[in-house]
């Protein structure tokens, strides 16, 4: 007889959800007359098939992990920070801005890179604070404030690329003029990844884990998220805590944007956020907002993203297949969790 409240029971349902997601994605591929096994194999070899590929996965993992880390704090405060895409974008814009201002000065490249990071953090925080102010003082739901600001951030990027920061001659969708090699975050010989940004990403998630698990601030943040009214009644300034969550999440998002500029693209491009903000929301949901799981699951999602790049090249399939699989995983895990709760609830009665 199975104990329905046991960890094993829960685990079983999660496995079931993963199997369901795989079946769903396979059916989708069959609908598109695509060979499922070959596609899965391509995604696998495309992500871990060589050192170069693994390094690419890590390059994608860092901004995703940073975004997820920040989101864990806004989720803890009960906030849906959909505006994170715009916050990443503003981080990238501010980093680019700082680098453009300082690149011709006599400052040392190391210092400029450092200022670039700080500028990115500032950009993300400013953009996040807009959503926060709209929410707390304007009564505008953070989902809609954030979404609107995402579109504004994209427009701002495109305006900069085609306007004030355009390449000599005519602006192009390929972005601004790349920065000098000296202003690149040092990369591992022959690979695209950088130990420095990897360090930033890992320290980020550890900080978030510690804030949520081991501080009064984290505890109170969770109280605000669980029951804002009750938290307010016992004397927690809920508005202030929500604003702090937005600020910290914005800082993480800005950091993600800064790494996109300093370590990946070395310039500002139109889709600089690469969708890592929305993907971070998915990761956070999938891990049920538990910081402990953020790193491995974000790594897996990054691997799916990188692996699926091979699909259009080899099989003429759209690379959004990874998004379908990621979405199916989150959807089925949420639904299976509901099914499990229903079964356990019945047993108690």
């Amino acid at each position, binding site marked *: 007889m199975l104990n329905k409240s046991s960890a094993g029971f829960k685990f079983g349902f999660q496995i079931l959800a993963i199997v369901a997601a795989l079946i769903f994605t396979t059916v*989708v591929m069959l609908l598109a007359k695509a060979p499922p096994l070959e596609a899965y194999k391509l995604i696998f070899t495309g992500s871990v098939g060589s050192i170069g590929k693994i390094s690419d996965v890590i390059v994608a993992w860092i901004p995703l992990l940073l975004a997820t880390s920040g989101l864990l704090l806004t989720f803890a405060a009960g906030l849906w920070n959909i505006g994170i895409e715009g916050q990443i974008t503003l981080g990238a814009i501010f980093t680019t801005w700082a680098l453009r201002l300082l690149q011709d000065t006599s400052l040392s490249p190391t210092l400029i890179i450092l200022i670039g990071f700080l500028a990115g953090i500032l950009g993300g925080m400013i953009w996040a604070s807009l959503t926060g102010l709209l929410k707390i003082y304007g009564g505008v739901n953070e989902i809609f404030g954030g979404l609107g600001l995402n579109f504004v951030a994209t427009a701002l990027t495109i305006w900069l690329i085609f306007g004030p920061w355009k390449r000599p001659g005519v602006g192009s969708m390929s972005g601004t003029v790349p920065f000098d090699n000296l202003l690149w975050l040092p990369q591992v010989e022959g690979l695209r990844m950088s130990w420095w940004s990897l360090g930033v990403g890992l320290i980020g998630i550890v900080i978030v884990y510690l804030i949520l698990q081991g501080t009064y601030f984290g505890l109170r943040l969770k109280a605000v998220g669980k029951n804002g009214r009750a938290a307010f009644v016992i004397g927690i300034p809920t508005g202030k805590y929500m604003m702090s969550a937005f600020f910290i999440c914005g800082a993480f998002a800005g950091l993600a944007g800064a790494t996109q500029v300093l370590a990946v693209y070395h310039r500002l491009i139109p889709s600089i956020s690469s969708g890592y903000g929305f993907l971070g929301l998915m990761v956070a949901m999938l891990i049920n907002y538990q910081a402990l799981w953020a790193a491995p699951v974000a790594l897996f999602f990054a691997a799916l993203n990188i692996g699926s790049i091979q699909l259009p090249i080899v099989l003429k399939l759209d690379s959004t297949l990874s998004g379908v699989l990621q979405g199916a995983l989150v959807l089925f895990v949420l639904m299976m969790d509901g099914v499990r709760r229903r079964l356990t609830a019945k047993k108690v009665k």
Partner: protein
Amino acid sequence: MDNNTLVGLAGILASAAPVVFAAIGETITERAGITNLSINGLILLTAMAGFATSVTTGSLLLGFLVGALIGAFVSLIVAFSSIALKQSQVAVGFVLALMSRDLSYFLGNPYMGLSGPRVPSLPIPVLADIPVVGVLFFRQDILVYSSYILIAVAYIFVFKTRPGLMLQGIGEQPATAYVRGANVNRLRYIYTIIGGALVGMAGPMYSLSVKVGWKGTITGLDGIGWIALAITIFGGWNPLRAAFGAYLFVLLQWLGLVLQPSLPNIPSQVLQVAPFPLMILTLLLVNIGNSEWVDRTLAGLPEEVRRLIAKVLRAMRTTPPAALGIPFENE
């Protein structure tokens, strides 16, 4: 008014038709107490599926039917996850929004750039010949006429009929509605499905009429659903006001295009998003009257000024259905 402007304005009525469908569909769903956040992806998925169906079968009607069915089914998942599985509506809706979008790009790949059927224009005899009004309203296609009818029917249904009152009841005070004999959760299923089907019509309205064809990521439909959700709030969950919001949004986009040549320094992509900051501003205006600090600040002002501001705020302010997003349990 010269003819060009008139044709331009008629174009606004036509391009707004899908937005009207999506915003009113979402209005009905939210009136019942369910937030369906999936509609941005849903519009893309149904645009692709409707187009693919019509290209394959040659039937426009089937395209719209498939769109409505997909819309209804995906929305059913949101309702089921919320009502039966007690999961967050926002979470499930958001995942479905992203997943439907990716599905549309993945499955729509073979249909990219194909030429397909288009809903024919259908001028209404006699009415179409009325000066100005005829060009503006009555030389459109059947979809635009349907959007006029939908606005009227939805408004009358919600505010003037008995089932409409019940719909308001299950969104405002489900417990009371339950005591009065309404099967709250069954009605929520029904209205989520109806609302979803209306949203599902919006996709094919784009791919078979307003922006014919399927062009993948450059189809330019990504974002419309989020706008429709904002319009639902702007519209204060009133179909008439939602329709007004839809027209306003499309008018702003059109102005962006018209003004483009006179503002050569601003890239077109920037003007296209101009409605978004304005949308945030309007959301701020309709919501700010609900904030406590506004009441407190106003209390310190001289009586006459206070009354005037309070009056303006009250006129603009909208409040959501009281039970929006809150699961109902009949015990």
